[in-house]
């Protein structure tokens, strides 16, 4: 019955859902996971690279972590080709800001700008949404270290700890239990690795 409302991104279902966006999130649920944790003196990002074949050049591939600018990086979960487009867009947006204002782009502004792009694909144009979730980690002089999570709908929020990709619910509940507000960077690294190991094993 809900199949009737599937085929276009640009219409709501009677229950007020956007099915294409939700299906995009399903696609991400099959991808390698990534965990981000915010600490007092840094943000930790851990990504799980899924090795599907031993013939793959794992040393040269950067399928998980990308640098957006000198003060900003992100971890990716989902369809890699979609992610590449968005990362390119994010890099150009960051450089545009620096060109105009001669200072690094604030983290939230970049996340918001990228999410505005993603939102466009859920409202007009008739194109499908991007099947990617991001964890953005960055620093700016107004708010210090920050961690943001965004999804195909274009929603984003600031998080103290977050997980995306496969088993993200389990990882998220584990982080909720073990995260402390005054966590140090080293403890955050250990916690993130624990989460990644739990996902994998």
């Amino acid at each position, binding site marked *: 019955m809900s199949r009737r409302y599937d085929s276009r991104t640009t219409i709501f279902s009677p229950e007020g859902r956007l099915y294409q966006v939700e299906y995009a999130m399903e696609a991400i649920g099959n991808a390698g996971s990534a965990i981000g944790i915010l600490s007092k003196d840094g943000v930790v990002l851990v990504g799980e690279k899924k090795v599907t074949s031993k013939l793959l050049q794992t040393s040269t591939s*950067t399928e998980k972590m990308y*640098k*957006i*600018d000198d003060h900003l990086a992100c971890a990716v979960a989902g369809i890699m080709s979609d992610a590449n*487009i968005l990362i*390119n*867009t994010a*890099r*150009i*947006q960051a*450089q*545009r*800001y*620096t*060109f*105009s204002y*001669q200072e690094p782009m604030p983290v939230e502004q970049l996340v918001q*700008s990228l999410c*505005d*792009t993603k939102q*466009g*694909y859920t409202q*007009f*144009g008739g*194109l499908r949404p991007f099947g990617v979730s991001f964890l953005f980690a960055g620093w700016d002089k107004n708010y210090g270290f920050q961690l943001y999570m965004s999804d195909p709908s274009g929603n984003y929020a600031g998080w103290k700890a977050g997980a995306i990709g496969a088993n993200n619910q389990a990882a998220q509940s584990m982080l909720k239990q073990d995260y402390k507000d005054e966590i140090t960077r080293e403890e955050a690294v250990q916690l993130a690795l624990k989460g990644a190991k739990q996902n994998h094993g």
Partner: protein
Amino acid sequence: MDPSPYQLLASPPSRPAFYSAWNFLYRNSKRKTQRSPKYSFMLFSSSLASLRNPQFSDVFEYNGSAIVAMVGKNCFAIASDRRLGVNLQTVATDFQRIHKIHDKLFIGLSGLGTDAQTLYQRLVFRHKLYQLQEERDMKPDTFANLVSAVLYEKRFGPYFCQPVIAGLGDDDKPFICTMDSIGAQELAKDFVVAGSASESLYGACEAFF
């Protein structure tokens, strides 16, 4: 190629979008209005300009500049003056004309101060994207070609700058070059000069090199 500050959002996709970096920037770079012909005229009639408006006898000499780069054994040197003038008056004595692109590449920009600053900012934009995408620094000869292309884009309304590029390429081999304001490269093995004092610098370099 002009990243417009008014276009902070990507344009909404009304047709299948092919988002490569170059394509994205090129699409936004096309001029939206007609360029008035008087700007091209200014380039070719500096002598007539001095009759119309003595303040702008030569736009390249308005702020004053002197830049020189020389090659040594597995090394290079690049130097500039620090004076910023408005015709004959000195306005600053700490104006920076040479900028670092990365540890092994420097660019000195002579000519009109505002164009030198803006051109540098645009080159930083392009180089940063290159670094992020290729995960390595740009080689000096590649960078020289980039500068040449950026200058030629403004062929009929140019930046009033003459860049001097100096860096270490593969195996730390020194590379220097200069170009005119519309991107014609002059590669040299010994030294290059640019700026309002270029004639004096040519003499000094020939004597001392």
